[in-house]
């Protein structure tokens, strides 16, 4: 059985390489390199989702939220310093708000523990809710003046001008911290509740980033995001993009190797055991809830790093540019099609799906323009003017259809999970 698996993997990758070569020829190097670089970043995100979904069986429908918060983190760290902001008294006000939030938060957490000292649960919950609301109101009052000042004179708080690589890591940490909070609330619940909770949090993160103008310039977007390698303006598109691609390739290889080592190790075995049967795992001494939280955090850290790389490549931090279809469901289909539980499968899925996703745009345009021409000649019906934008929607339909086809005919994916065997 092992041989056919190797052959299958090799043949699939060869087929993919052939398709990419064709695209290089058809669309030219710059376009193809851009596609590959973006596919590379999405492969990292797919690896992160595979850790949550393939290893631990946690269904995360809020990948967009984790990518967004990580991209914000990376922008915050790597964007050049905004001197005007630091001279104004805004940092002082923000500090005051931070202190208020810290004290309020501490009081709330303390109150939520007092039921251990004989205080009845009902009063404990009431006090905790009141404390939380009070903290929220105080923070709101402290924030509004500060935000006002920042927006008036310095635009937004700007970044810290640190190296981009550090930015990506900090972005990953932001996503991991967000995952920790959601995980604490929802991990005890069934998988479709986790799906709903993560779907919700993604929309909330997007709404926050879109409206916190003092932090992210909101809909005015922040650009140009600094690149870890010389940008296109300095060395031309092809060189810049191939350099960026090589960095993402290196990242993919590192993450892949580490995750592969984890897969067959005691840690990976424990995770697969928990995924298969939580009751039995608990009975052999595994703290299931803590471990699931650990997986959710690690998975989303990797999603964060990949997301930060993706948005940095785009060069613009535009909160309203995060769409569930492009960021959550596209990655989901990459892992499901590639093969959940198989890291190589996730990488392959990422490349294949992204090729289909990008190529379906020019293909649809050609198809529709011919169709419209034929329609006009035969029936004399004038095609709608925004034909191009509509052709784009064809991709959304194709991705939706692919999900159904995969679930029906290849539920385990093209490169299914490899059973770990010891000869």
């Amino acid at each position: 059985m092992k041989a056919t698996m190797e052959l299958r993997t090799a043949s699939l990758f060869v087929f993919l390489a052939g398709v990419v070569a064709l695209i290089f020829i058809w669309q030219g190097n710059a376009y193809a390199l851009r596609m590959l670089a973006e596919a590379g970043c999405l492969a990292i995100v797919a690896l992160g989702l595979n850790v949550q979904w393939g290893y631990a069986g946690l269904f995360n429908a809020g990948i967009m939220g984790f990518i967004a918060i990580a991209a914000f983190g990376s922008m915050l760290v790597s964007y050049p310093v905004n001197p005007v902001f630091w001279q104004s008294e805004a940092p002082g006000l923000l500090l005051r708000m931070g202190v208020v939030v810290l004290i309020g938060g501490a009081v709330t957490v303390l109150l939520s523990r007092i039921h251990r000292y004989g205080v009845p649960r009902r009063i404990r919950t009431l006090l905790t809710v009141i404390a939380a609301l009070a903290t929220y109101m105080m923070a709101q009052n402290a924030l509004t003046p500060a935000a006002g000042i920042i927006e008036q004179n310095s635009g937004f708080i700007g970044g810290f001008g640190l190296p981009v690589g550090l930015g990506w890591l900090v972005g990953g940490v932001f996503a991991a911290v967000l995952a920790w909070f959601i995980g604490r609330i929802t991990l005890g619940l069934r998988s479709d509740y986790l799906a709903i909770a993560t779907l919700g949090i993604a929309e909330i993160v997007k709404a926050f980033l879109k409206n916190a103008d003092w932090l992210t310039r909101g809909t005015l977007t922040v650009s140009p995001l600094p690149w870890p390698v010389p940008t296109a303006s300095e060395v031309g598109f092809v060189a810049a993009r191939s350099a960026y691609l090589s960095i993402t390739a290196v990242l993919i290889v590192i993450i892949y190797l580490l995750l592969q080592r984890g897969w067959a190790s005691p840690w990976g075995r424990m995770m697969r055991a928990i995924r298969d049967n939580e009751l039995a795992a608990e009975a052999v001494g595994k703290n299931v809830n803590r471990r699931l939280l650990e997986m959710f955090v690690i998975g989303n850290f990797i999603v964060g790093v990949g997301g930060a790389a993706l948005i940095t490549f785009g060069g613009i931090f535009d909160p309203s540019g995060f769409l569930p279809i492009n960021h959550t469901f596209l990655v989901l289909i990459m892992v499901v099609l590639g093969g959940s539980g198989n890291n190589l499968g996730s990488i392959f899925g990422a490349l294949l799906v992204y090729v289909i996703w990008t190529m379906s745009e020019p293909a649809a345009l050609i198809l529709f323009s011919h169709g419209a021409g034929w329609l006009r000649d035969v029936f004399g019906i004038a095609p709608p003017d925004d034909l191009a934008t509509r052709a784009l929607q064809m991709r959304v339909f194709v991705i939706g259809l692919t999900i159904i086809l995969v679930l029906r005919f290849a539920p385990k994916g093209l490169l299914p999970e490899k059973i770990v065997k010891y000869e």
Partner: protein
Amino acid sequence: MGIPGKWPAACPTTNNPVGVALTALIEVRNVSKRFGQVLAVDNCSLKVERGTITGLIGPNGAGKTTMFNMVAGAFAPTSGTIWLNGKNVTGMPAHELFECGLSRTFQIAQEFSSLTALENLMVVTGPRSEESLFDACFRRGKVVRDELSVRRKAEEVLKVLRLTHVRNECAGNLSGGQKKLLELGRVMMADPTVVLLDEVAAGVNRTLLNDLASVVETLNRERGLTFFVIEHDMDLIARLCDPVIVMAAGTVMVQGPMAEIRKNPEVIEAYFGGGTAMGRAS
């Protein structure tokens, strides 16, 4: 038949008031459990002495399953305390009980379906579960050493249970009986101080039942492993267990060797269907 070496127990220390007699391995004191209006267990106390194979029997609705699940950490009692090895373990979750040396099997075998039989055993890495991704990635040496010892032990347990021929087979595809044996293998891997067997005879044919019983007897005889068995199959209880505790209507009715229990008119009546004889002119 050598049974692999023993790992040091690492039970989280909890308070143990002075003066508690340490003879009994498991002690249940005045435990009750209420589900809504139904009082499943009513102020019940029992002991499982060290080194014995103690049986727990009783007609349906006697509360024995509820009592068994409370000792196994599935849920906490409404009132009363449970002691393991002299430590108060009331309400302690199953994974912490495992670290105190308590292992259990399930009435319907619970296997890790996508892992092979060998890996099902290797999941049990000893009392403290310290697997970490960091070690797997950066401390290869430690991981390889640990893996080797766990794997050797797992291979031995497979040999004892005569499952070596399915070592690379996914546990999900094994037969019902093999899954039961594999579960017993997981218990052996953990080197517990006490094993809770939950209806081990359920859905198992005679020959396999014989194997299971002999493995239990060997572990008890050679390693002094204590067993707490809940079972319907009276012949298996008679073969394995001494003493036998009989529960009825939520509390312990009587305790003693099976030969006496079998002849005790009260027990027969409890099983055969107590309450007023509501006769009918036939």
